[in-house]
């Protein structure tokens, strides 16, 4: 390869790497602090995955082209009959070990940040899944929003959350296993009957987020949707105050 060709190739690879580092690879960037943390992990894992795949595809492609049998070869021509190369084998075992240890380290730290529960959340939201809908109750005011019985033409319930404040979601189910998934927050958690589970969401964007049930739960699973509108805190306060309080006063 000429020096100029090499320089162009190098620049191209650098450009590709730079754009890859900032690329979302098709993933939403995350409308919450926790979601953005997951998004960064996604970028790191995807970038590592693409790099490894490129090397392996390159080696496979090179072998197939360079070492193909040619018309000039005898019909019973053999390749070079070597069996093993222990130092090389140790190296290609050790390198993946290093890669996965590094990936584990970033994943572990990321999960700690995503799973961290704030000492004093601004809002507490009790979410109860049932076949096939949701019952959301706000702590303090007891404001409650419940799904209409679901079906193909029924819209799910809409709730609001304040931007910039941390919402503690306390999740359970009252019949089968469901899952609370907001793709725009890059987050889901299973709702398991007989258990409660808690996680925090700190929205950063005022926008409307679609939520779905992610764990198959029977007939109308596909229609078990909800909507979260993230609004400024004062708008949120007014909205909560205007909601009927159906449930018992929650702490």
């Amino acid at each position, binding site marked *: 390869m000429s020096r100029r060709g090499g320089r162009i190739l190098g620049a191209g690879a650098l450009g590709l790497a730079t754009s890859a580092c900032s690329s979302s690879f098709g993933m939403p960037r995350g409308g919450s602090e926790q979601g953005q943390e997951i998004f960064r992990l996604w970028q790191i894992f995807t970038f590592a995955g693409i790099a490894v795949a490129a090397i392996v595809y390159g080696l496979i492609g090179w072998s197939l082209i360079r070492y193909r049998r040619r018309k000039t070869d005898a019909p019973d021509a053999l390749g070079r009959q070597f069996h093993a190369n222990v130092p090389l084998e140790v190296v290609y075992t050790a390198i993946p070990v290093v890669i996965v240890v590094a990936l584990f380290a970033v994943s572990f730290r990321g999960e700690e940040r995503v799973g961290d529960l704030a000492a004093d959340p601004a809002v507490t939201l009790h979410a109860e899944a049932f076949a096939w809908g949701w019952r959301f109750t706000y702590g303090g005011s007891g404001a409650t929003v419940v799904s209409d019985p679901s079906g193909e033409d029924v819209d799910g319930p809409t709730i609001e959350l304040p931007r910039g404040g941390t919402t503690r979601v306390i999740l359970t189910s009252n019949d089968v296993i469901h899952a609370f998934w907001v793709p725009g927050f890059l987050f889901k958690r299973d709702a398991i009957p007989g258990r409660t*589970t808690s996680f925090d969401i700190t929205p950063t964007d005022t926008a409307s987020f679609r939520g779905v049930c992610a764990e198959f739960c029977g007939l109308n699973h*596909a229609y078990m949707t909800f909507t979260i509108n993230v609004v400024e805190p004062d708008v949120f306060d007014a909205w909560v105050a205007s909601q009927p309080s159906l449930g018992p006063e929650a702490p």
Partner: protein
Amino acid sequence: MSTTVEQPPAAEAPMEPERHGPVAWLTTTDHKKIGIMYCVTAFAFFLVGGALADMIRTELAEPGRQVVSTQTYNTLFTIHGTVMIFLFVAPFGAGLANYLIPLQIGAPDMAFPRLNALSYWFFVGGGALVLLSSFASAGGGAAMGWTAYTPLSEARMSPGVGPDLWILGIALVAIATLLTGVNILTTVFLLRAPGMTMWRLPIFTWNMVVTALLGLVAFPPAVAAFALLLVDRRLGGHAFDPLGGGDPVIYQHLFWFLGHPEVYILILPVFGVVTEIIPVFSRKPLFGYAGFVLATLAIGALSTGVWAHHMFTTGAVDNPFFSAMTLLIAVPTGVKFFNWIGSMWQGKIRMAVPMLFAVGFMANFLIGGVTGVMLASPPIDFQVADSYFLVAHFHYTMMGGAVFGIFAAIYFWHPKMTGRMLSERLGRLVFALLFVGFNLTFWPQFVVGMRGMPRRIVDYATGLGFDTPNLVSTIGAGVLTLGVLVFLFDVWHARRHPVLAGDDPWGGYSLEWATTSPPPERNFAALPKIRSERPAFDLHHPDVKP
């Protein structure tokens, strides 16, 4: 040329006259006939599962509900998953094992021929029950997903007879797997020909040893879980029902303690297949035989410690532990890729159809492996678990990986099993259609998964970026289906217009290529001397030092 031959001990046993016709097949205890019946039956289940998948893809081609009712759709994906996993890929591996292991180790048959026949008929019976559980059962078919999570699969949520038949069917298939596992291990440990040491064992046979061990470890807890579920459903138990103090999370542990080793039970035989094929078509020995065997053992061991990565989003398991174990299992899998590349390096690679499928396997499985590493990170699962991203991931391993390996096996060993070649030209067409169709079907599913499309939904709203990828995916399923039809034509064509294969059309390495095609009833008239892991190669290339 070395002409030393050793009589296999069984050749001296008195032979029954060979019988032909359907009765001979139905009553056979010959490992080759049982192996072929296993493969043909499993492939028939593949056609059933594929037809169900086509109905699923037709429903999902555009938003709205057009083709089937919601309940029917839920049964479709339940039976599709069950059939493909338990009735196609795993039994096809068992069929290859039945056919090949005695040949590869120089034995006249499996250790327990009658037990072998019993395994096959349990598998057929279990498969029939699973099919009955779909649409032929009173009060609703099985529609709880192939995972049958409780409490959804409890009688109060799924009252029909379908789930009961499904449980009994899976239990029968599980017993068949256990019996086959015992048979394989006994055969390999006790019936190897003189000179066939464990370190000369063909890689396919090695991989089946680990597969058999995994089956013995993983299936009993799952059968126990299914039995408890049946007690819950019909005898008033509450093992997994929170209303009676049971715990649905325990069910998930027991299920995935089977479920994750199961994916290696599905893929290890295929790793064995492509590891037989790549060196033969590169005209080289396998690079790093010992490393490959150790990697297979490592995969087997690690795969029993990763099950709860299916439960990262429950918030009820130790995510970091299972994340670390899952990341580690990528290492021995990566080693295998380097074994395959090393086996092609400086070879004389002949791109015949089996090699094409082996390369297609590597290309697809690599994407399945890389996305598997992503899924090993629990926070990434918080977004993509139970989404179409996950569906795409496991189809890249199971369909793009296992099924491409199965097609490689069919094109490689069909000449040995029948004495006739499949068509090289039709084979290339089959490969092209399957490879393009597969990637068209499943790549868009990564995209919709990231955009938030959950799995197992009959319908999706428009305007979410799901429409075009789903349409492309459905078109891809059509291309795949066409590829399978061309394949069936190829098999029919080979029956009607036979092209004789001869004993060794590929220049094969393991012992099955040192006997006739098809082999005689007791497999070998005489065995060549076994001096390396390539006895058939040594026979034809006495000049090459093993």
